């Protein structure tokens, strides 16, 4: 385990952990005491030390103002999204608008402001450290995370010094972990109730291919909410108003509520005790299991409604589901197990530890990405539709939810006035008709349109959601063939430069000289790209036009010059440019790959090992 290169990380609301694959088996990273779960909790101390994990969690009661948790709930969000959350967050959350109009959340803690990305990066660094500092990782997110939440997670990984190979959906990862010893086929439902989020995904499994048919969820539903119900009941009982920020009381209440909730999974009755001697506060109340079940019942109903929606999208009924998998610590609650079992009409799987199953799946995915094995493939979907604002604040959907990724959608735009050379478009994500009900992702600027009379240009805008569920946009003016320049001004989050800066600032990397390391990485990449291209040219160069071949020669010279220089951004640009001109060649070769794989196997069974 000391030389782990790549791990799978479950970055959870309440706990985080890592797993890896060794000799074909997925294993969880444990400390010397055998503990795998690292509380997603950070404490800040007066002398400048920052603790992460159980040490930080232990501080939560003693020093609540300098302890923070549930950061995942803040990822990729803005203040307006968090309205109903704020009352129970003991810290001051502020929103800063940057010069370019992005709204960036900051948490004010210990006299400094941190973005959620930086805080999550601290947790990831701790997870990484315990796994022996691997350089690459697959990180999981709730299936229902939107584009900004995925971006924020990716950025957190980057700030933690990780090369994030892939963002994988938690329920899909869980299915992958369970699918290991099952080579069959069938329909799997994953019910994932974590600390802060809920997802239901319906997958089909066939010959090692896991295809997500539909996913539904709620990014504001989880075990934390059960704690809050208990907290609210107790607060009402004590006659205190929780909206008056009282970090000490909140923290004690939260801690007691969580204990009571966990105890009620094993016993019929449990005591909720709040003791704050300095305030002469001694409070005790007994909750029965059925009382607790009544409290959470509406939330469980809500989760089952999402399951129903997911099934409807997959055009299936509960009885057509062959296997039900439970994920997330909250599925330990007997009431949850019972209700889910009743809904699908079968006993859910609980063989794997619900806290570890996501990390195990992420580790398997990391292994698939790096080891060259091809026995399994994940086909995931876009959880929420993506579209562009049109007249009257209506969202024109370009890519519909539950489309398999990579997914592409094209739409055509034209100009309104003569000689207009740029178009601005607003991008939204969500299912509702109107922009005000969807999430604003950012503004898309199409520039470099050749001057023409109004209504004459035909700009085809292509949305591509990649395998991580993250959007990229390209555009081309059809009459002139000119590639339009596309810049997306995101509405939230950090820019590439800001992230690079944070990476450089992190002490660990300052010592290793970040720029030098990055230069080496990029030079290696550039040289590999040139090698691959030469090989490709030998195979299929004759299928290119002379112009395409010339473009490659020119771009290669530029790339070689950039390799010799020390200019990081020039090198990155040259790599991008080279990738662009070698794309036709890569496409031809990829098509040859398909042909080769298909020929000769038509008469044989199409078994994974033949492909």
């Amino acid at each position, binding site marked *: 385990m000391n030389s782990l290169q790549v791990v799978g990380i479950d970055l959870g609301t309440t706990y985080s952990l890592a797993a890896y694959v060794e000799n074909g088996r997925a294993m969880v990273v444990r400390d010397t005491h055998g503990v795998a779960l690292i509380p997603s909790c950070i404490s800040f101390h007066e002398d400048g030390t920052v603790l992460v994990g159980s040490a930080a969690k232990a501080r939560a009661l003693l020093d609540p103002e300098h302890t923070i948790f549930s950061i995942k709930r803040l990822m990729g969000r803005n203040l307006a999204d968090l309205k109903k959350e704020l009352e129970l967050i003991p810290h001051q959350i502020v929103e800063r608008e940057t010069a370019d109009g992005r709204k960036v959340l900051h948490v004010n803690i210990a006299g400094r402001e941190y973005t959620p990305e930086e805080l999550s990066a601290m947790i990831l660094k701790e997870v990484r450290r315990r796994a022996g500092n691997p350089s690459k990782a697959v990180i999981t997110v709730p299936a229902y995370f939107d584009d900004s939440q995925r971006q924020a997670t990716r950025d957190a990984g980057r700030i933690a010094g990780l090369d994030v*190979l*892939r963002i994988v959906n938690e329920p899909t990862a869980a299915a992958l972990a369970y699918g290991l010893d099952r080579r069959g086929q069938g329909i799997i439902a994953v019910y994932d109730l974590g600390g802060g989020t809920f997802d239901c995904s319906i997958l089909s499994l*066939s*010959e090692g*291919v896991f295809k997500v048919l539909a996913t539904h969820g709620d990014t504001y539903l989880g075990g934390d909410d059960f704690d809050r119900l208990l907290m609210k009941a107790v607060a009402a009982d004590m006659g205190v108003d929780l909206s008056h920020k009282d970090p000490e009381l909140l923290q004690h209440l939260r801690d007691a509520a969580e204990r009571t909730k966990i105890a009620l999974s094993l016993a019929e009755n449990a005591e909720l005790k709040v003791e704050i001697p300095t305030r002469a506060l001694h409070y005790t109340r007994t909750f029965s299991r059925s009382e607790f079940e009544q409290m959470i019942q509406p939330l469980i109903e809500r989760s089952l409604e999402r399951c129903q929606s997911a099934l409807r999208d997959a055009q299936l009924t509960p009885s057509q589901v062959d296997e039900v998998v439970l994920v997330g610590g909250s599925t330990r609650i007997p009431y949850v197990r019972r209700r889910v079992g009743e809904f699908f009409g079968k006993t859910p799987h609980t063989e794997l530890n619900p806290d570890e199953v996501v990390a195990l799946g992420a580790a398997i*995915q990391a292994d*698939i*990405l*790096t080891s060259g094995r*091809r026995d399994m*493939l*994940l*086909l995931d979907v876009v959880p929420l539709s993506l579209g562009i604002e049109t007249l009257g604040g209506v969202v024109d959907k370009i890519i519909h939810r539950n*489309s*398999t*990724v*990579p*997914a*592409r959608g094209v739409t055509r735009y034209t100009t309104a006035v003569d000689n207009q050379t740029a178009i601005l478009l607003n991008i939204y994500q969500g299912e509702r008709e109107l922009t005000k009900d969807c999430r604003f992702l950012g503004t898309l600027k199409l520039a470099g349109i050749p001057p023409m009379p109004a209504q004459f240009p035909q700009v085809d805008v292509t949305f*591509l959601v*990649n*395998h991580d569920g993250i959007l990229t946009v390209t555009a081309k003016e059809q009459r002139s063939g000119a590639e339009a320049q596309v810049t997306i001004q995101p509405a939230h989050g950090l820019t590439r430069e800001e992230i690079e800066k944070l990476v450089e600032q992190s002490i660990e990397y300052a010592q290793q000289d970040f720029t030098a390391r990055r230069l080496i990485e990029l030079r290696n*990449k550039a040289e*590999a*790209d040139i090698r*691959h*291209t030469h090989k490709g040219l030998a195979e299929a160069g004759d299928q290119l036009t002379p112009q395409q071949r010339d473009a490659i020669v020119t771009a290669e010279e530029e790339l070689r010059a950039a390799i010799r220089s020390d200019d990081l951004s020039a090198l990155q640009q040259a*790599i*991008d440019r*080279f*990738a*662009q001109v*070698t*794309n036709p*060649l*890569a*496409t031809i*070769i*990829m*098509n040859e*790959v*398909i042909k080769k*794989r*298909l020929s000769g*196997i038509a008469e044989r069974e*199409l078994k*994974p090992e033949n*492909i």
Partner: protein
Amino acid sequence: MMDAFRRLGLPRRFTIDRGQLEKAYLTHSRAVHPDYHLTGASAELHASLELSAEINEAYNTLRDPFRRAEHLLRLEGGPTASEQKQLPAAFLAEMLEAREEIEQVRGHPEKLEGLEARFRQRYESLMNDIATIFEQLENPDSPRRANQLAQIRSLLNAAQYIRGLIRDLHAE
């Protein structure tokens, strides 16, 4: 325009075998999916993204009978049913009747299921009629061909209308 049939290596015809479509889709996905090309050159990853997106698009087009028929009409040189919205002459009466039936089940959820099943049956039978005409489609130089294509378009529009009715049943 992409030919979805060619993209998945399937014969260009309306009637397709679902099992064969699934297999072709999985085989192609396995060959080009970005997860298997992450460690390659930048252009390779890019090409795999584009091709995977095309394969997904082709699969979605062929999986749905309505979209498959529209795609075939487009490959034939058009127009498609969405571009030319005429309906079969006798369908108007059927539409009115169906609307009336929906009014009648309103407030009677127990009757909803039966009506939905009937609409689905009707949809299937329209699709079967479409399949038959596609099978009997004459050569491009035949004078009957234009008429056949027009028939397909109007049946498709009728099927689309029924599909809308089923959606409305759930929207209540």
